[in-house]
Structures are given as C-alpha cells and as structure tokens.
C-alpha cells in the first residue's frame, strides 16, 4: 500500500474535523473492504481517519419500539447480543452469516452500510426493517439511504453514528452464498411490520432493493407458498460467473419463501 497520514480521533466532532482538513481522506472502521483495496494499491487516500477509538459510536441499546446499534459495533457483537436476539432475532441471525469469524470480529455495521456493497448483508436488514440511519448531521430513512452500487445518500465527510431498527412483528433472513466469496449471491430479508410487509433483496441487483411483487403477495398471505409462487423478472439483475440473472431471479422467490417460513 501507499503511504498515508493516520488519525485516530476520540470524538465524532474531531473525526469530522480531520476529514475536512484532508485532501483525500477516508474513514476506516473495521477496514474489511478498505484495507484489501489499499493493499492492492487500488486506492491511494492522503489520510486515514480511524473511527475505532470513538466510544460514542459503539454499543447496542433497546430504545423505544426497537433497537439502536452504534455504527462502530462489530458483526459479532450484534450476532451475540441478547437484546438483538430477543427484539429482532432475524437481525442477529443475519449478522452471524456475514463473512467469516475474523471478518465478523472486525467489520462494523456503519462501515458495511456506508460502503453499500451490492452483495452485503446488512443493507437487506436496514431496508427490510425500514430502519433509520443517524449521522452527525441528520436522520435518513432506509428508503432514501441506498442509491445503487456503492452509492448512498451520505454527503462528503458525513459520519454514520447509529442505526435504529424498529421491532417488526416477524422477520426472517435467508442468504444464498456466492460459492467463492461467500458474499450473498442473493439474500432476502422479509419483515411483517406495523406499516405492512417489507421485502428487501441484496446480491441480486446493482444495489439492495425492495420487491414490490413479493410484498404484494405476502401482504395478502404471509406464507412460504405465497412467496414461492411469485415469478421475479430477471430484467436488470446481475449476471456473472456464479449466476445468471435468471438464476438470481429464481433464488429471490425461493429464498423469500424460506425466509418467510423461518420468520419469527
């Protein structure tokens, strides 16, 4: 990797200052995407601002009708949290499926959704549960946050501080792994919420998206069979060595059915 200036602020305000002063600064949380990119010399930031020493970004709290997770909370912490398991078991289950043991020890929820990899798991939960993303400047609704492949609504230098997940009646997540990377070839998050059924799909398209067809089918009848009967169009879905658009489309309904059956 190339040389860079390293900063380790202890408050969100100092982190915001540091990125503002850098010519081409990058935040690093768990570093699970950024560090391999640097090692391959595919990115050359002038400054790295490490968010791991900021106490206010960490921790899991039961809050109002749901649960709030600090942006720098690791996947392992979410997967093992008694509060998350009790309030939204599907979310703890999803976190337990990310990467491998080492990745889950380092990777964070804030880092994952700020990166918005089209095959990442967390965006499916954030969108599927209709979560709210809190930043150092504002609150953003999940429906407004994800803007396609590696793009979000975050402004330059804006820092995610926490994600608030409202408690659903029931939710389930089913992931089909890409055989090599074990990212989601397709992942489907299904939630029955006060505001209706939400179905979020990751891996299949250029970014996480809601499936209107599945939401309609499950709205009338929240059963695996209802989901399985939905024919998803392959138009606009990803195709690569590991799956054609048609294969991904088929997996969306299969996984939606399995997620619905497993929802709790």
């Amino acid at each position, binding site marked *: 990797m190339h040389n860079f200036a390293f900063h380790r602020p202890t408050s969100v305000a100092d982190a915001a200052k540091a990125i503002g002063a850098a010519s081409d600064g990058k935040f690093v949380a768990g570093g699970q995407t950024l560090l391999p990119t640097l090692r391959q010399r595919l990115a050359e930031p002038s400054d790295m601002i490490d968010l791991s020493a900021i106490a206010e970004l960490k921790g899991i709290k039961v809050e109002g009708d749901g649960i709030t997770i600090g942006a720098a909370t690791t996947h392992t912490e979410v997967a093992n949290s008694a509060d998350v398991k009790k309030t939204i078991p599907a979310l703890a289950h999803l976190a337990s499926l990310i990467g491998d043991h080492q990745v889950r020890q380092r990777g964070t929820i804030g880092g994952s959704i700020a990166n918005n990899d089209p095959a990442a798991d967390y965006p499916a939960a954030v969108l599927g549960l209709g979560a709210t993303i809190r930043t150092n400047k504002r609150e953003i609704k999940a429906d407004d946050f994800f803007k396609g492949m590696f793009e979000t609504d975050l402004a330059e230098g804006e820092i995610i501080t926490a994600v608030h997940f409202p408690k659903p009646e029931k939710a389930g997540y089913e992931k089909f792994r890409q055989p*090599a990377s074990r990212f989601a070839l397709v992942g489907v998050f299904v939630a029955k919420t006060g505001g209706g059924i939400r179905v979020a799909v990751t891996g299949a398209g250029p970014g996480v998206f809601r499936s209107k067809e599945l939401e309609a089918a499950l709205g009338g009848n929240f059963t695996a069979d209802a989901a399985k009967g939905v024919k998803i169009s392959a138009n606009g879905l990803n195709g690569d060595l590991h*799956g054609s658009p*048609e294969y991904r489309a088929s997996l969306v309904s299969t996984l939606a059915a399995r997620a619905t059956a497993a929802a709790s």
Partner: protein
Amino acid sequence: MPEGTGSATGIGASVKRKEDFRFLTGRGTYTDDINRPGQTYAYILRSPHASADIVKIDSAKAAKAPGVVAILTGADYDKGGLPCGWQIHSKDGSPMIEPPHFPLCKDKVRHVGDQVALIIAETYAQARDAAELIDVSYKETKPIVSLADADKPGAAQVWPEAKNNTCFDWHIGDKAAVDAAFAKAAHVTKIDIVNQRLIPNAMEPRAAIGDFDRATGEFTLYTTSQNPHVIRLLMGAFVLQIPESKLRVVAPDVGGGFGSKIFHYAEEALVTWAAGKVERPVKWTSDRSEAFLTDAHGRDQINHAELAMDKDGKFLALRVNTKANMGAYLSTFAPCVPTYLSATLLAGVYSTPAIYAEVKAIFTNTAVVDAYRGAGRPETTYLLERLVEKAARETGIDRVEIRRKNFIPVDAFPYQTPVALQYDSGDYFSTLDMALKTADWAGIDKRKADSKAKGKLRGIGISTYLEACGIAPSAVVGSLGARAGLYETGQIRVHPTGSVTVFTGTHSHGQGHETTFAQLVSDGLGIPIENVEVSHGDTNKIPFGMGTYGSRSLAVGGSAIVKAMDKIITKSKRIAAHLMEASVADVEFKNGVFTVVGTDKSVPFGTVALTAYVPHNYPITELEPGLEETAFYDPLNFTFPGGCHICEVEVDPDTGTVEVLKFTAVDDIGRVINPMIAEGQIHGGVAQGIGQALLEAAAYDEESGQLLTGSYMDYTMPRADNIPNITVGNHVTLCTHNPLGAKGVGEVGAIGSPPAVINAVLDALLPLGVKDITMPASPHRVWQAIQTAKKAAE
C-alpha cells in the same frame, strides 16, 4: 525388504509426524523466512495484456526513484530461455514446436502476467513504487483464449511457427484394429468432456532468492521447489550456463506443491541472474494475485470419446480425441501430461482390447498449463468413468455389473494394455466389493426415498480407477521423449555412535517423508526412530536426485533408501563377523543386533558403527573404514495403484446446491508404511477432487484474455464445510518389482474422486431427465441443467 518388524516405529505403524511440531508451532523455515546479508528485493512488472507488442519501455524515471538498485528488461537479458523437459513427436514424425521462453519478454507479451521488467530495490515497497513509474507502450493484438477455437482457421496466432496454434498432433494405439472393432459393434456410446482448468493454490506462494558470492564465484538459489536438483540442472545447464559445481539450489520447507512447484520458473532464473549482476542477494516473493496469474495451471483438456461394445456390454474398442491447452509457452513437463500420463492410461481397469487416441497440444494466450496433482490420470479417469457410466445407462446394464464384466481378471497380471503400459498387479474386484459394502450401495433406495420426502434428490456415484506412479524406467521414458532420468537416490550416513542421517533426492512439502523414511530406516536397522534424521532439499548435501512428484517418493525414493540400507547391512555384517570372530555367512542381523547363528555371540548395531569409525579392531586390509552408502534406484516399471471411490450426494433442486453426504475410498496403494499419513494423503486428494467436481474453475475472458478468477472472491477453493467425513479402506496387492511393494498414494484421491462425485450428481438428477453436466457442478450449473431438462420435457 522384509515386511517389517512390527515395531512401534517401524513399517505399518501410524507414527505421529516428526515434522509436525515445527510446522504447527510456526517454526518451519520457508524460502521467504530466509534473509541474506545485504539482500535486495525484486518486484516483477507484469503484462496487463494477453497479447501485445512491446513498443517501448521507459524506465528512466523509475531508475531515479528512492532505493532502486537496478531495473532490468528483456533487452538486458543475455542468457538462455527456459527449457522444456519432454519432447513429443507428431504423427508425421516431426518434433513438437518449441517456441523460445525467455524469463523477461523481449518484444511481445503472450499472457496476462507475463514478465516485462525486473525492479530491484532496497525494500519491496520501493521496488513496487518504482514499478508504477515505468512507462511501457504496448500495441495490443487480438488474443486467442478458447481451447475449442484455437486450432480453427482464422484464430489469432500465439506463435507464428505454430500453425493453427498447434504444438504437436500425436497419437497412440492401433487405429485399424479400433476401426474394425467399431464396425462390428452392437452398441457405441459417445461422450464429450470438458476437463476444466484449475489453479493449484499451494498455501505458500512461490518465492526465490538469488545469491552470488564473488569470493568463490558460487551462486545459490533458495526456492520453493519440489525438485532442487532438476532446477539446478535446467537452470545451470540451459538457462544461465553455470556449472553444477558453482551452483547450489536449496528448497527448504515448502508449503505445498501439488505439482505447481516442479517446474523451472522464470523468477528463479531472474533472481539468480540478477544477483550476479548487482552482486547482492535478490529476493522475490509472489503475492497471491501473482500466484493466480503465473503459477502453472492444471488440467484444461477437452475430450471426445467413443466406446464400442458387443451385445453383452463387453468393451470392444475405445477411440479418444483430445485437445490439451499448453498456455502461451511450454512449461517444463507440459507435453507429457496429455500424452504419456493421460493416453497411456486409457485402458484403466478394463480389458478393452483395442484403443486409439489422438492428442493435439494447443497454444493459447493464457498462463502455462502443466502437471497438477494426478497430472493426466485424473483427466483420463474422468473420461473413462463418465463414459462407462453413460454406456451402462444407455444399454440398461447395471452400472456396477458393466464395470465388473470388463475388469481385467485377477489372474491376468502382468497385463499388457493396448496403450504401451504393462500392469504388474491389481485386484479391482476386491476394492469394488469392499467399497460397495462400506458405502452401503445396496441400501441407497431407502436413502433416496428419505431425501425425496424432504424435497431433495439423492444420488450415488461410483468410479473404478487405475493410475500409474513412479514414472520409469529411465531408458523407456527417455525413448518416449523425457530429457532426464527418472531414478532416485538415497544415501545413508551412519554416525560413529550409531545414529543415522538419511539423504534423499525426493522432497517433502507436506507428504511427511521425514517420518515415513525414518520409519523405514528405524525398522531396517533396528534403531530408535529418534536416532534417524531425514535430510532433503539442498543440492550441496544430497546426491543428485529427481525430487517429488507423480506419487514417486516412496516407491522410487524409498526403494533407493532400502537399497542403500542393504549395502550398510552387508558391510556391517563383515565388521560384526570380524568382531565375533565368525564367518560372514554365519552372521544374522535382526532387530538391530548381529548374532552368530547357533551361538550366544552378539554385537549390537551401535558397536559395529563405532568400530567402523574407530577401527582399532578392524579387518582393515579387506574393508575400508566408515559406514556410509549411496544407492541410485532406477525402477523396472511404473507402479499401478487403483481402487474404487463411491460418493453420495444430495441436491437441492430449488437452488442447485450439491451437498456431499458420504465419500468412500477403497484403494490399492501397495505396501503402506504409515497408515495415518497415507490416509491423510487420500483425504487431501479427495478434497481436491471434490474441488474439481463441484467448485473450482479458472476462467479467462474470451475477448480480453483477462483472468476472471484471479482471487478467492471468484475462484472457489474447497473449504472444510464442502468436504464430508471420508471413509478410507485399503486392499493391498503388492507392487511386484520394487523392494518395498509400494505403489504410491499422493494422487489417488484426486484421480479417483471427480467422476464418482459427478456420477452421483447425475444419478440424483436422473429422475428430472438431466443426462450431462460440466464440471464444476456449481449450484448455478445444476440449476441450469434442471431448467433445461424441464423445458425439454415440456
């Protein structure tokens, strides 16, 4: 060699590996762990294009970058090209096309990753930084990537001298006899196979350090090699013109090879050459991305095969047409893989009386392809076992029965095949019966019904395979095109107090030789295993040997050690006879003690050793002092392990996922020295075979020639959760022509398993009408096959 003494550390004992403490606690010494005083670091600038002319290389700016010691390009390189170690002649008698293979490209790059410039600096980071400042102008030309299309008219040409990209067009067998048999066949089964390209992925990437001592004029190369003497011979004699006496090659601990570290690579020659130029040690270590791009790949054949049968399903003749991908250059042993290591195995375990095979070797703008665990035998086994399975389905003959019906009978050995090889021993009926029983073949219907009740499809598949190891004898392989001998060397040095160092020309890079060979000597000389050290990997210590590949180490290298041990015992008996004042003919050696038959006189081995080095009371006029013997063993024939593999899978028809539920391997590997190590070798081989069957495939973009599977994000390595518990059985018939009766175990797992897995997948999918699938049977491919069959049924 006797069958062994039954001692706890002798032949047949599962002695825990002597090397494990060092490896499991991180105390091994690998090439990258070695640092020489004054060492510099090399980075290799590689071609980003699959095919391009090098118009200009401007390294002026890079040469001034911090820490840069030298920048060398093809224009600076004034030594020889990398040689090919095996020459094949085409049908018309003409020799294969051997294009030059310089370690730095002169005027053209021929695959992504080809070497363009060598940057030497004080640190690795400085070398890499400087490489980014080199400005190379390329004129891109159209590459040819597809093996299927490369020999068609109009395809881009990798080498002007290789018309239609054809390196050679070779054949073996009796074409007329095969044609005649097909003319009277009651049934003919045909199959088309793609045996996909694999990337070896040894845990330790390649590395090399070149060192030059101006005081002595001696060069040293430390390298990740399976055969340091072969590298010394090829690099010294053909590439850099350094006499053996001035060139030392050291292959220290090596973290896995699987064949990919047999070959002489450009980087080895470059660091040695450059060390002489800059008069400082030069170290190069591959990163994982370079390993994907530049390690020699494996497999990559396409085959068409036809089997002629009589009305009872007896095989009459086999006809095979193969295209084998060589990549952009000829790697060290590439030409022998699809020919003498593939086509000569086409009889397999069957008594097919007539066989004819044609093999075309083809250049493409891809990384070189060469031997990879099994090297040619997995390709042939896969072809045969898919073909036999298909023949059974087509004729309605039970798929076990059709195999049994065509097996070479137990009393037919030695058995001469129609494709050159003569098998010495084997019993395919016993390995089949044991495997069927262990795998509960008979109970499959009930298990299929259980799976069906869960919405899954269960299948069981079988493969009855044969392979050839310990490629030999030298005179025969020489007549077939080998440019080296294929014997092995063993040297036993008994020290004055009776401990022993064994020097072997083979090389251990995961096989456990330090334990297995120590067991041989502990058993043979009756001394504790702790008193036996096995030394390998340094050409300054070891007599000239050929290294480790082709499952040869025990059958050939172990036999050399036994021969050297025989010489030690012969001499020791003479010393013991002198000490006991007896006739040599009356001296017996057993369990480490010399006795005079019929008396209570005895002398232990240690006393004989001490006497040999402190010859106060010694037959000095008849016998030299000292106790050290060397043997070179050139085998009389290949060895022929074989056996039966059975795989049971469950397919999820909604997602196409294949889960391997059970794997049974019953092999005949000849005499087993350490059953635990042998079983571990089979486990590893089967894991690689499951990898090929279900997971792994190298893919290049057909237009650009870019490697699409250049990292673990896209290249699917088998992981623990892909591999079931493997049940291993063993039915021994001894090799009849080596002193150990050993056949070889390193590759059987990777050879026998892929067709067993795919036959199981096809058995599971049979109710849906799926008749064929191409490896790897990934979830996507299985799902597609199901959809295609569904459409066809509509």
